[in-house]
């Protein structure tokens, strides 16, 4: 999930204003005496910069000869791909487990970690998840999953209680809850579809629970298609968008967080990463989360969770030893815990659990392993599914839309 896409504006704005600040952070450390080895840590998230900076400061204290420079530009994946064309890869990369990772791993940019001790410390489900992103011809694990996320429905506990409703366990119960919220004059769902990527949250939940296993591989092989297998997904998306507010396509992610924090909306389709943002608007809000119940069989409903941060190392780095040292440092239980606590995230490191009471509603999924991956991470990046889905939710032309998804997929793969 390219979360920072939604924050492009804020990020670009702050970049424009404080470009020097960014480099200033790294540069300040770089100036320190004895900084013999310089490592670049490239990150695709703007949300976790402070956490990294704290961890880096601690690491540099323990290892005075290593100097780590954090670089987290806006539109990071694009920046990374364009740096690749210049053969100027960062030593260490903290990126999401998505199609970009798969492309880059296939291109042979990353070191293969298969069989290393690091992977023993990581939950195998997440290792499988990123292995599947790399095409069939290439074997190997080119990254170390670190933090994971959950694609959830966030809800306002107080409002749900006022309405006299329970957390829904099936699709029918969910639609019923939306209906009752609407009848009571509340905004059932705070949609933020001005930012196209936010539509992917509900899309991923719905699609992950309905699409056949290995849809992407089958689609590429011509054995599956959107027209055949996504009809129900499209219908359910149209049902959900009925329960928005007046201006579903005019409100963006950051405005939506504020509005939801201020009590506008009972449900909010967002991942765990939005929780700190909502709490910024209203620190006292009583939030809960649950996996979207997409089918009517509670046993079948799974939580969509993906690798939010994985560490990859460039094959061309001159400082492999130092880079490994830093990875080992981050993988320590205590550091992994610090990361997930500050980021309201989940850890891919074995034995590190998120104990925040807000996350109670999805804890069971992590314990039982009723988890599935983000469908869109397996779509070809060039087809820009998010914008197509945004257009579909406006125009509501199901048949045409499904056909378009099929065409765009084929078109991009044929290039």
């Amino acid at each position: 999930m390219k979360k920072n896409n939604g924050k492009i504006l804020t990020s670009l704005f702050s970049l424009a204003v404080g470009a020097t600040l960014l480099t200033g952070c790294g540069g300040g450390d770089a100036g320190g005496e004895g900084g013999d080895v310089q490592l670049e840590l490239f990150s695709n998230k703007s949300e976790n910069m402070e956490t990294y900076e704290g961890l880096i400061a601690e690491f540099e204290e323990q290892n005075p000869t290593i100097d780590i420079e954090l670089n987290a530009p806006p539109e990071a994946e694009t920046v990374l791909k364009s740096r690749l064309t210049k053969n100027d890869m960062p030593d260490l990369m903290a990126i999401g487990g998505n199609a970009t990772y798969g492309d880059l791993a296939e291109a042979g940019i990353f070191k293969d970690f298969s069989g290393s001790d690091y992977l023993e410390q990581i939950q195998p489900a997440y290792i499988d998840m990123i292995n599947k992103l790399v095409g069939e011809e290439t074997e190997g694990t080119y990254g170390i999953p670190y933090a994971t996320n959950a694609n959830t429905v966030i809800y306002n506990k107080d409002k749900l209680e006022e309405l006299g409703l329970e957390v829904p366990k099936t699709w029918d119960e969910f639609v019923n809850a939306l209906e009752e919220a609407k009848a009571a004059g509340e905004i059932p769902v705070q949609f933020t579809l001005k930012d196209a990527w936010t539509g992917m949250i509900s899309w991923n939940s719905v699609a992950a629970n309905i699409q056949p296993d290995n849809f992407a591989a089958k689609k590429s092989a011509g054995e599956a298609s959107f027209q055949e297998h996504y009809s129900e997904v499209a219908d359910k998306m149209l049902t959900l968008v009925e329960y928005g507010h007046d201006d579903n396509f005019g409100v963006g992610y950051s405005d939506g967080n504020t509005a939801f924090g201020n009590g506008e909306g009972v449900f909010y389709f967002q991942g765990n990463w939005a929780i700190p943002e909502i709490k910024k608007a209203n620190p006292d809000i009583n939030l809960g989360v649950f996996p979207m119940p997409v089918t009517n069989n509670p046993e079948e409903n799974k939580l969509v969770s993906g690798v939010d941060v994985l560490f990859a190392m460039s094959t061309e780095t001159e400082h492999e030893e130092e880079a490994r040292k830093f990875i080992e440092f981050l993988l320590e239980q205590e550091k992994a815990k610090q990361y997930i606590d500050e980021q309201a995230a989940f850890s891919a490191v074995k034995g590190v659990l998120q104990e925040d009471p807000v996350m109670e509603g999805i804890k069971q999924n992590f314990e039982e392993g009723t988890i599935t991956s983000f469908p869109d991470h397996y779509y070809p990046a060039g087809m820009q599914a998010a914008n197509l889905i945004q257009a579909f939710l406006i125009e509501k032309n199901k048949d045409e839309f499904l056909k378009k998804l099929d065409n765009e997929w084929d078109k991009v793969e044929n290039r």
Partner: protein
Amino acid sequence: MQKRQNAFILMTIPALALFFIFHTFPVLQGIFYSFTDWKGYGDWNFVGFKNYLNVFQDGRALSAYGFTFQFSIVSTILVNIFSLVVAMGLNAKIKFQKTLRAVYFMPNILGILIVGYIFNFIFAHFIPDIAESLGINALSKNILGDPDLAWVGIVIMAVWQAVAFNTILYLAGLVTISDDLYEAASIDGAGPWKKFWAITFPLIAPFFTINMVLAMKNFLMVFDHIIALTGGGPGQSTESISLLIYRGGFEGGEFAYQSANAVIYFIVIVIISVFQIRVLQKREVEM
């Protein structure tokens, strides 16, 4: 004489070298890669004209061309009307003339992303709040969220920002017109309207040409306005060609394909600019 010429050649060489290395060479590289299937990294093969043929069959590229032209034509016309009006106002003998000139130039020195941030706020909160309290339903939603209206929002911001620069060019033109002409016209009994069409407009014709060409070219390459306001959405309704090339080329791993698109687009812009200059300069001569 020979010596003097050598000095001139020496003076141009650094600029020529820089231009070649940073401009011409990348262009040639882009043209080269447009005949391959390079993703931006990894291996590649020659594919001939396949990329070019695909661009013509790509609905997304065609709709990007449609949006870009619609946007640039409307914006170019509006910018030229507004900047001419503002320039004539600032050229008149008014109080605080210098201060006002500085104020009207302000938008040009603000970064487009910052302007975009402000306009985003205006469209998302300011206008809807006012419209709601006045009971105007049509404006109570964010227009950037409506696929049919989002482009209007971009035009508003682009025009607001671009008027500043074109005003300066028109002002430079207006200053060259001697007051004697207006005085003579007044004695002949010409009204303000007549004066404008018979004196002002013909005499600033060269500035009109350059403003039209520059504005059109800038708007055809529109990119940061869209990143700041809509990111190409809703759907793909405000995706300009530059944005499509950037998105597809770098995010989507279609470097070679979008290079072909860029080459086609380059040719289109050259044709339009040459056409504009030809037509408008002909008009200058006739005057």
